[in-house]
């Protein structure tokens, strides 16, 4: 016997918006097949409609959480190359040069290549992906990105059989990035993914958000977006992508090895000495919400880590 508390009854407006969301998901499932974004998730049958990560409708993600306001997405940025003050990044990065821009892709590949930004935009069709972004500091956003799966780029350069990891590097330009003049961190910013993580369809190289080209504060012109990992993994303003044999040491691993591991998967069961990882505050909300394992993308990525102890591989 259990009674329903009034607090558990969904308010009508949310209920109705969920209904309209469900309806539109129906039409999107077909679209998802075409995009081949999440064919597996969409193939389980008509009811209940499975969530389709990355797709958007009526301004929500697939869990029907609303998008974070554009002003917050472009006004509240962790980008230490410019400033440690999140709201100082936008003004400080206003004149950052994002064109011309080239990205050197090399290392253990058969066809190393330097891409001009225009090449990338032309070669790889841009898709919209609505992803949750969970910062290790305990806050989160829902952002409609534009970009393309990084596996498309990697397939083109053909990683050799020795390649096990992908190493990403941010541009080093202290004259335009005042934060890089501070010797406290080991610049340039470096991040890494295991090759199979990078090949996962959810991992994209983002070129825009909210239907517009990326602004400098969000990592223009090209950044990584790996939604199941803490935000710092999603390295900004990439100029170099190398396929390597050993796991690269990221800037944060070097700065705090006991706090920041190579994987940095969103995991409410792996505590951090400072910030709650079991709960988070969505920017724009007043309360807290529980943090989801792999930021809610378990169905798509949990298989990458089967048999691994996520507490030691944090």
């Amino acid at each position: 016997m259990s009674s329903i508390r009034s607090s558990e009854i969904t308010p009508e407006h949310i209920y109705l918006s969920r209904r309209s969301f469900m309806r539109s998901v129906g039409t999107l499932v077909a679209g998802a097949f075409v995009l081949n974004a999440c064919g597996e998730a969409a193939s389980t049958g008509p009811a209940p409609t499975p969530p389709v990560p990355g797709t958007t409708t009526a301004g929500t993600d697939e869990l029907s959480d609303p998008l974070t306001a554009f002003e917050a997405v472009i006004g509240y940025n962790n980008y230490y190359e410019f400033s440690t003050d999140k709201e100082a990044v936008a003004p400080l990065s206003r004149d950052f040069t994002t064109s011309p821009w080239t990205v050197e892709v090399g290392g253990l590949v058969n066809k190393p290549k330097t891409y001009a930004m225009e090449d990338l935009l032309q070669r790889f069709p841009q898709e919209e992906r609505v992803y949750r972004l969970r910062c290790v500091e305990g806050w989160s956003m829902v952002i409609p990105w534009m970009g393309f799966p990084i596996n498309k780029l990697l397939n083109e350069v053909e990683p050799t059989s020795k390649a096990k990891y992908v190493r990403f590097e941010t541009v080093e330009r202290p004259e335009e990035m005042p934060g890089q003049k501070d010797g406290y961190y080991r610049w340039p910013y470096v991040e890494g993914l295991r090759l199979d993580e990078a090949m996962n369809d959810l991992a994209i190289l983002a070129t825009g958000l909210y239907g517009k080209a990326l602004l400098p504060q969000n990592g223009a012109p090209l950044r990584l977006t790996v939604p199941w990992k803490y935000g710092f993994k999603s390295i900004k303003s990439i100029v170099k992508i190398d396929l390597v044999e050993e796991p690269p040491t990221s800037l944060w691993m070097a700065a705090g090895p006991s706090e920041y591991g190579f994987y940095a998967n969103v995991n409410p069961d792996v505590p951090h000495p400072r910030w709650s990882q079991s709960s988070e505050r969505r920017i724009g909300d007043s309360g807290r919400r529980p943090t989801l394992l792999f930021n809610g993308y378990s169905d798509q990525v949990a298989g990458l880590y089967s048999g691994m102890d996520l507490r030691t591989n944090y």
Partner: protein
Amino acid sequence: MLYLRKNWLRMLAHVGALIPLAILLWDAHLDRLTFNPIQEITFRTGKTALVLLVLSLVCTPLNLLLGLKQVLPLRRPLGLYAFFYVCLHLLTFVYLDYGFDLGLIREAIVEKRYVLVGFSAFLLVLPLAITSTKGWQRRLGKRWKSLHKLVYLAAPLAVLHFLWLVKADIREPLAYGAVVATILILRTPAIRRSITRFRQRRQQAATSTTAARVPHSDPRS
């Protein structure tokens, strides 16, 4: 007017201590507390509390080193304002941030060392705030002074709280740590005695030289 002239330093302390609250409320009213207002309120109240605590502790050494007796009465109001901001800080944490979710709050205290030391510092200054009145001072007599030495434990804990919560760059908390460490060193009996002795000797020397100079102050006379 006379009251103001006599108490201007005290007035300044009151006004100065309330300005951060006024700015906080004003910014809240104008919706200018960043896109993460709860965190901003937490940061601002915490920082203000720490600054006021340090200022209240600086009064005694100021008197010791420079003989500024007039700052001594500021210790109580500054300490109480520090406690006031600590209460706002704690309330922001348990109510605004965690919505009195006891499970999450317990987890935070047990799991995060910075929360643990911050909370300990609060528990240490709580009895000091309660016994800050003249009545309690009288009732406790000599024990009042010993009790209020707890602040010399609370202040380093507050700095540790700050040190453990910053992401990577520990320079700012270390600066506060250096100030608190200096204050603590000046408080140790041996150092204190030698400073007092040094000052007394200098004062004596000063009075004796002026005294000696008086007859020769105007050689033409």
